[in-house]
């Protein structure tokens, strides 16, 4: 039997038959640029910086994200808010997306939930310098993809069921003076969003 | 037409031969020899020996020279600054004798001899060059043919024995 199998190469033929028949099955290709992937909540796409609902910057420039970053792609230059002594903020915030490994450690390190990852996965540009994100660009991303960011935070920071809702992102998790950059923007009494507010936001979007 | 072709072939043959001997980079030597083989094959075609021409390319160019290239690359030889001997008097001696023979031959009335039966027309009637050679080879020269195949076999075995590691003790490492 074995000899005959070798001579007539039945096994090889079997394999070839399988491949041949496969030709007639429908393809499962997604025509990517025309059809986009539907990524789940909590997808780790491009980084973004978030603002409070009143428009003030969440980031307090604590550099913990920089310390947590395994690929050293974050650079925070912190300072006092001009005219507001003792209020700390990130004067400059640089994120080199070309070096980012999208691990999300920075968002976990962030004590004020200022960092969130969006669902944006199309990061290619014609000029590589554009991938050196600065603070402005990151906040822009955060505004453009606010829903992504909130969904991300919900998925990664809160949704394990064990967190007490009143702690969490709630009332006094971190007692920071919020950064007030806008003119006449009232200083919010509570920092951070409540869980309910976040869930409502996510449900809306 | 034929003359032009001949002189072209001859000239390239000579030049590439000279290059074969004189170039320093071994790979260039091989390439020059390759050129020379092709033009010798051309000469064969001029002499109505198409079969031999093709065989020349298959055997020399396709097998022998590739083997040379192989060895060159295995050994990774680089060009050597001191690549020439000072033994040219020997060469002159040999040239002298060959030239003397040639002169003798010319003096003796040029080259020639008994004209055989294998005229172009006769070869065509046999069905071509290939058939003619085949017929002769497998009838008149059967024994030499078998001897030649034996030689090849011996050479093959010899080559394998020489190069295969472990068959011969490689103790002479320095």
């Amino acid at each position, binding site marked *: 039997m074995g000899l005959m199998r070798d001579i007539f190469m039945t096994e090889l033929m079997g394999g*070839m038959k399988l491949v041949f028949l496969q030709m007639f099955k429908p393809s*499962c290709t997604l025509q990517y640029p025309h059809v986009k992937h539907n990524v789940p909540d909590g997808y780790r796409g491009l980084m973004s910086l978030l603002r409070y609902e009143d428009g003030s910057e969440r980031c307090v420039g604590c550099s913990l994200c920089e310390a947590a970053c395994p690929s050293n792609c974050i650079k925070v230059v912190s300072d006092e808010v001009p005219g507001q002594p003792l209020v700390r903020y990130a004067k400059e915030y640089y994120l080199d997306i070309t070096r980012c490994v999208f691990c999300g450690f920075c968002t976990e390190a962030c004590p004020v939930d200022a960092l969130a990852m969006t669902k944006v996965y199309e990061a290619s540009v014609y000029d590589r310098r554009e991938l050196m994100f600065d603070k402005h660009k990151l906040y822009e991303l955060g505004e453009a993809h606010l829903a992504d960011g909130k969904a991300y935070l919900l998925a990664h920071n809160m949704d394990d069921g064990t967190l007490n809702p009143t702690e969490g992102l709630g009332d006094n998790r971190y007692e920071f003076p919020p950064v007030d950059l806008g003119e006449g923007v009232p200083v919010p009494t509570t920092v951070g969003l409540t869980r309910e507010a976040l869930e409502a936001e996510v449900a809306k979007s | 037409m034929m003359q032009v072709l001949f002189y072209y072939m001859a000239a390239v043959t000579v030049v590439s031969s000279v290059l074969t001997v004189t170039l320093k980079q071994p790979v260039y030597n091989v390439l020059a020899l390759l050129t020379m083989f092709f033009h010798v094959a051309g000469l064969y075609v001029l002499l109505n020996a198409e079969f031999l021409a093709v065989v020349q390319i298959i055997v020399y160019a*396709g097998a022998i020279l590739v083997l040379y290239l192989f060895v060159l690359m295995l050994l990774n030889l680089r060009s050597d600054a001191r690549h020439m001997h000072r033994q040219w008097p020997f060469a002159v001696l040999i040239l002298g004798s060959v030239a003397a023979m040639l002169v003798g031959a010319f003096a003796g009335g040029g080259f020639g001899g008994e004209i055989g039966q294998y005229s172009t027309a006769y070869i065509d009637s046999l069905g071509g060059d290939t058939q003619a050679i085949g017929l002769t080879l497998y009838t008149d020269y059967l024994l030499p043919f078998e001897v030649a195949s034996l030689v090849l076999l011996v050479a093959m075995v010899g080559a394998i024995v020489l190069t295969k590691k472990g068959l011969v003790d490689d103790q002479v490492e320095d």
Partner: protein
Amino acid sequence: MELAMTVGLAVFQIAIVMGVVLLSVAYMTYAERKVLSFMQDRLGPMEVGPYGLLQPIADGLKLFFKEDIIPSSANKLIFAIAPIICLVPALIGFAVMPYNETYAAFGGEAGVISDLNVGLLYILAFASVGTYGVILAGWSSNSKYAMLGGLRCGAQIISYELALGLSIVGVLLLSGSLSLREITMAQDGGFWHWNILLQPVAFVTYVISAVAETNRLPFDMPEAESELVAGFFTEYTGMRFAFFFLAEYANMILVCCLASVLFLGGYEAPMEFLNFIPGFIWLAIKTWALLFFFIWIRGTFPRVRFDQLMKFGWKVLIPITLANILFTALGVYIYNN
């Protein structure tokens, strides 16, 4: 005048044949990508032109306009000529390929550029010259990957050329000629005259050797991307890279064409009543069927190891072909007497 006529005719024929061959090469790449895609539940090129039909042209243009980089430590002369050495033998073989019974348009006799009486040997001779391009490309790149690729390629081609040549000998014994046109004509009169029926073993060994000869999967050791990056043309870019690409596909078409001529009756129709279809179409159909087979096995089999490859060539294929020759010779002797 007559000379001019002959030369002109030859040039015209060459132009036609080369055009067809190069176009086939281009669309061979397309066909390969498409067929492989289908076999892998994908779609393949879809963007350039309808169903990606213009993809080969786009690729060609892209390669043409890419920068031609010569590595600084490469041997510049040889690096430059190696792709040409590789491509020319692959194209030159089509000179003796009979594509039609007659060449009616200009009153020519045979549908072949040059009906050489040692045509088969001619193809083999030039196929062996192609090895130089590969070896020299590998050597002149002055890169380890390229060097190893070149050496592997050389060894593989030399080894399988033997098996290829020997598997053809059976056909030669049957047809008694080295002229491809005569071999084709010997298979005239329906598919039951085709050599494949008399020489099935030779056909199989021929196809296997041909796959190895053209460095195709599963025998693409010289350019195995997972271990040698791209083998001997690792360092090549732009047009020179395209030359290697062209040579590979031209070689494939050449061996498939040769296989159809030697084993499948060339331009002959399988049945008498199908004679109204021109011969070159039959040749094309047979060749493309074989090319499809090439793609098919590429889609099916994994790459073999190099030592397995050499072992298979020397210890399996060559003995089989030798045995085939022996039996064929005996058969022919018995049949003739």
